[in-house]
């Protein structure tokens, strides 16, 4: 069962990647662990998808469906209810083992792999809230799945910790389904979600947003159900301020405290990790240090918009197809480094073995900057200088570089400066 390219994951990323591979005339198999294609888009029933790609506003399921229709029209081969359990590269070939109820353990070989496995939610364990360990403390995305796919409400009196977009979307969703949503707390002095979500999900329903606040205590009742939480203001070093405690009687605490790329599958491969993106390092073709292994979408960096996931993954698909045509490349790489005010940059490398691939860079700023100047510097040479307005960490920014304008020997540094 040898394939040209195998795509792992059938959400926004995998669908776009597989479609793009197939359009380049290559043989492709997509593997999805859930029972249907579409991934997390299926539970994102709100609108706001497609504005970038289709210039029209769709809901998540509609956005997924447009891709699934094209995917089916192209007759792309896929497996559902199938999990990749082991994955390796032996000589020039990738070997994959999958597990499924229908077929048991199967082995597949491929010349190239695209990782489109998305991301997972940070849980209570990753921020360590003192107090009891009752039921009723749940990630916002899990609550979203229970409500929108399975039809269960997880609670009636809800508080939300973290102002990530899923938390904001769930604040509105729970409110509309009849829950009382008492508030959203955010540790930072600014929101981590898109402004339009603050307005349409919180302000529309008078749900208060507590900036510079966090939950400092969780209390359970005798049945080990959540009973109350304590909200507390924090100082500029995120230390809770004594005397600012407020108690809320709630049965549910939703956590929307960040997303982490799901790249556990890559453990068995010789990839290089990036602490900043919490994923692996790639070059501009979205190829890792392992030749022929591509990563895209939220598995590479957590995006704000599904549209950007699709666009990035399309590039990964195109490049994987080019790799299959020409796998023996002479690599010559330079680094892209995060400079002042930059919290991360993707890709981390520019590889001159990929002269045909566009250099599209995305980054996030460390703080809020009203007017900024982004400068890309290689040695003595200023490669790019661009003004940007209203930069916030919650919104990813992009720029592109021309590979011809770069030399092959010096690393590149990206600085963001606040200007007047």
């Amino acid at each position: 069962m040898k394939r040209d390219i195998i795509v792992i994951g059938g959400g926004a990323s995998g669908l776009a990647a597989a479609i793009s591979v197939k359009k380049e005339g290559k043989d492709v198999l997509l593997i999805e662990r859930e029972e249907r294609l579409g991934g997390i888009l299926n539970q994102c029933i709100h609108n706001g998808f497609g504005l970038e790609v289709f210039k029209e506003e769709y809901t998540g399921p509609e956005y997924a469906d447009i891709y699934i229709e094209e995917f089916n029209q192209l007759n792309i081969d896929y497996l559902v209810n199938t999990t990749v359990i082991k994955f390796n590269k032996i000589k020039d070939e990738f070997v994959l083992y999958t597990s499924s109820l229908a077929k048991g353990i199967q082995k597949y070989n491929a010349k190239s792999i695209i990782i489109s496995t998305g991301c997972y939610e940070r849980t209570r364990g990753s921020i360590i809230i003192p107090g009891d360990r009752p039921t009723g403390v749940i990630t916002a995305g899990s609550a979203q799945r229970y409500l929108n796919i399975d039809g269960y409400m997880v609670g009636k009196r809800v508080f939300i910790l973290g102002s990530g977009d899923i938390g904001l979307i769930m604040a509105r969703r729970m409110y509309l389904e009849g829950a009382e949503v008492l508030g959203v707390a955010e540790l930072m002095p600014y929101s981590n979600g898109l402004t339009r979500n603050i307005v349409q999900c919180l302000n529309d329903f008078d749900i208060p947003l507590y900036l510079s606040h966090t939950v400092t205590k969780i209390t359970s009742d005798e049945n080990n159900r959540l009973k109350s939480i304590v909200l507390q203001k924090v100082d500029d070093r995120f230390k809770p301020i004594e005397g600012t405690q407020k108690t809320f009687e709630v049965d549910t605490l939703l956590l929307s405290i960040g997303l982490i790329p799901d790249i556990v599958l890559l453990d068995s491969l010789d990839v290089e990790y990036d602490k900043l993106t919490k994923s692996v390092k790639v070059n501009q073709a979205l190829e890792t240090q392992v030749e022929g292994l591509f990563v895209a979408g939220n598995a590479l960096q957590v995006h704000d918009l599904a549209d950007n996931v699709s666009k990035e993954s399309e590039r990964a698909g195109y490049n994987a197809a080019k790799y299959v045509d020409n796998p023996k490349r002479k690599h010559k790489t330079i680094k892209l480094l995060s400079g002042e005010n930059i919290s991360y940059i993707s890709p981390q490398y520019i590889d001159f073995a990929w002269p045909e691939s566009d250099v599209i860079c995305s980054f996030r700023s460390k703080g809020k900057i009203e007017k900024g100047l982004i400068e890309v510097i290689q040695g003595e040479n200023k490669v790019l200088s661009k003004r940007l307005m209203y930069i916030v960490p919650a919104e990813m920014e992009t720029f592109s570089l021309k590979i011809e304008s770069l030399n092959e020997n010096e690393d590149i540094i990206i600085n963001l400066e606040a200007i007047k």
Partner: protein
Amino acid sequence: MKKKFICIVCPRGCHITVDDDGTISGNKCIRGIDYVKTEMTSPKRIVTSTVKTIFKELPRVSVKTDKPVPKNKIMEIMKELSKVIITEPMERGSIIIENIMNTGSNIVLTRSCMK
């Protein structure tokens, strides 16, 4: 009564205030005025939700209003949606309720149901 808005026309997100006498301040461009005027007079939103089905494989199916509806009708629409049960296979875009609450907007499926 003073009213405060955050403009969502562009990423700048101006904090705009409307005073008792109707004076608008805080907007950095003219689009902010239009935004606030609509929000003051007839704010509208697309409503998205799910409805029940009789199918075990797909117990809920997602729906939306095909046009924005007045903000003050949202809760009534939610109430209507809670009464709906889908009993037969239907395609994405199928109309479930026509002209809901006289808003001129239809409730449509945003995914196909068992089709």
